[in-house]
């Protein structure tokens, strides 16, 4: 009886148009999560390490964009390319200073170093950029709203998933069909053997961080366009959520990360849309999803089973 009433409630708030509206929002949020989640999953695949600083690299990208457009008045298309390059370089610097010296250290040290790098970036951002949130400059090209039937759609809502899918295929091509990609796959299987086969481990790992950070940069810029307010701690919660997306999809698996991103994005939007009384728990949704996945299928949706050898 209670369930029936509950379902009735949902049907009352949810017309087909509303549903489509929420679904488009969910897909565009999910694509953002997917873009950032790919970075986590790539680094995890190759180093077996959560890159805690990934969310902060994402935050840095939005600030780079802000300063490039607002302070130096560089047109947005040049800015986007510049920011992607700069963020990639930042990722490589973080890897070289916080992760490379600890390559043979116990995992717990590397984890702590990762958390330290993340806090350093956040605090640096507070000191350099200031703690007050800033308005992200959004070119009108992206923010125009048009109507499909009775569903109002921002251009961005379409652009984000398209960008995400294009980048996904580019990345899959890079990993499966190029020499660097082959090196990445080799290193992620076995460091020692890859080294013996003549793969430059440090260079490959650095490249992985670079590519992951570039994707985070794209994600960051899109995030800024969608939620035009940037602050030094803005990367923390999206960072955690995207990591969760990567785990849900099966960490180390790029397609899995994309699927996880969509599940998380659509799930979050739908939760708020269907059960408005739970709005305050929106951020908890991701964590509950994570714990469920870890308990019932720790390898995620697309992950492969890992057995521990003695």
């Amino acid at each position: 009886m209670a369930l029936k009433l509950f379902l009735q409630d949902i049907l009352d708030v949810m017309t087909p148009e509303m549903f489509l509206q929420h679904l488009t929002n969910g897909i565009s949020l999910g694509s953002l999560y997917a873009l950032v989640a790919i970075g986590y999953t790539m680094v995890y695949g190759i180093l077996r390490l959560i890159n805690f600083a990934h969310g902060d690299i994402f935050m840095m990208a939005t600030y780079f964009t802000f300063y490039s457009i607002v302070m130096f008045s560089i047109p947005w298309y040049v800015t986007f390319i510049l920011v992607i390059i700069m963020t990639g370089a930042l990722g490589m610097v973080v890897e070289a200073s916080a992760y490379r010296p600890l390559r043979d250290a116990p995992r717990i040290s590397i984890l702590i170093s990762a958390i330290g790098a993340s806090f350093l970036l956040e605090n640096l951002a507070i000191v350099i950029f200031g703690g007050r949130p800033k308005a992200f400059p959004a070119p009108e090209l992206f923010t125009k709203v048009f109507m499909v039937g009775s569903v109002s759609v921002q251009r961005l809502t379409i652009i984000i998933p398209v960008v995400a899918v294009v980048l996904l295929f580019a990345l899959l091509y890079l990993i499966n069909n190029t020499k660097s990609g082959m090196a990445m796959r080799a290193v992620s299987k076995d460091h020692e053997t890859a080294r013996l086969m003549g793969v430059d481990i440090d260079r490959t790992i650095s490249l992985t961080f670079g590519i992951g950070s570039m994707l985070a940069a794209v994600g960051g810029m899109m995030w800024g366009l969608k939620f035009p307010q940037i602050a030094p701690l803005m990367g923390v919660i999206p960072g955690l959520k995207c990591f969760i997306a990567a785990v849900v999809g099966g960490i180390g698996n790029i397609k899995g990360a994309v699927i996880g991103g969509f599940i998380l994005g659509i799930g979050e939007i739908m939760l708020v849309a269907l059960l408005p009384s739970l709005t305050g728990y929106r951020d908890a949704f991701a964590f509950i999803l994570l714990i469920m996945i870890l308990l019932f299928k720790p390898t995620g949706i697309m992950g492969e089973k890992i057995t521990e050898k003695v």
Partner: protein
Amino acid sequence: MKKRNIILTLVAVLLALLFLWFAKENFDAYKVRILNLCAIYTILGLSMNLINGFTGQFALGHAGFMAIGAYTTALLTMPVAVKQQNFFLAPIVEPLKDLTVPFFPALLLGGIFAAVVGFLIGAPALRLKGDYLAIATLGFSEIIRIVITNAQRVTNGALGLKGIPNTTNLWWSYGTAVVTAVFIILLINSSYGRAFKAIREDEIAAESMGISLFKHKVMAFTIGAFFAGVGGGLLGNLLGTIDPLMFRFFLTFNILLIIVLGGMGSITGTIISAFIVTIGLEWLRFLDQSINLGFVVIPGISGLRMVVFSVLLMIVVLFFRHGIMGTNEFSWDKLINRLNKRPLVKGGTK
């Protein structure tokens, strides 16, 4: 234990007591508060070290347990009138409204409540290992915070609680710290403690020696959560105000810094570094203010303190991975030998 060492320990304890008495009488409120914080961070560091250092389970849920302890203790000790002032958006739930208990049982209840939640979280989450465990516990801690933010009628939500009685004083905080330290030392040297360390060194080997991984991990986690709750309760009643934002991941990070600097798996190391970190964080405040060098004034940059602190953590992890003490403990023999510049006798000091 040698007679000399017992005497030295007694003298040290006596000196510490004298110092506390002196501090209570003569120090200003600010310094007393820092001393209190040192003791509270010692409790928190010890409880986290039990989970992370001794049992080797990298859990990051401390802020959540502290929040539970702090809220429980605060709600139980606040006078009825103050509660009514606080809950102006929505009335407080019934049994809490007129309920006021003395500080000690409130603190104990805070710890017990945190331990119960710790048990409920630990039982499923401790099946995970390494960074998965880290993320899952972090997630749980975040969920606790979100629940506190949304439970308006119990916790006053995002507004937080104000006017909590300032019951925590030097005797309370140092007394609890000593009890915690003694309890954890006894635990570590018992058969349970040896099981914890065996799990830390090699889970598979420990399991094949007949140690129940689940039982011991959950036990360490629950005890750790209990002391985190007690520490949180002391902190709440020291500061007088708490709100959900206080218990973000950053708080866990501070405690992590303490145990990394002190050495994962060293009790004396944790105590020493709790003092260094707490006093250091206060001392570094000069970085946020402007410095007058006489001929030039360097404007203060707020936030610089935390940058310096993050850099310090990175340096410790990158170059001094074992912290101050590693897994060793402080002993008078080593100190005296070092003072005499005499090398240790081959094969140990026995």
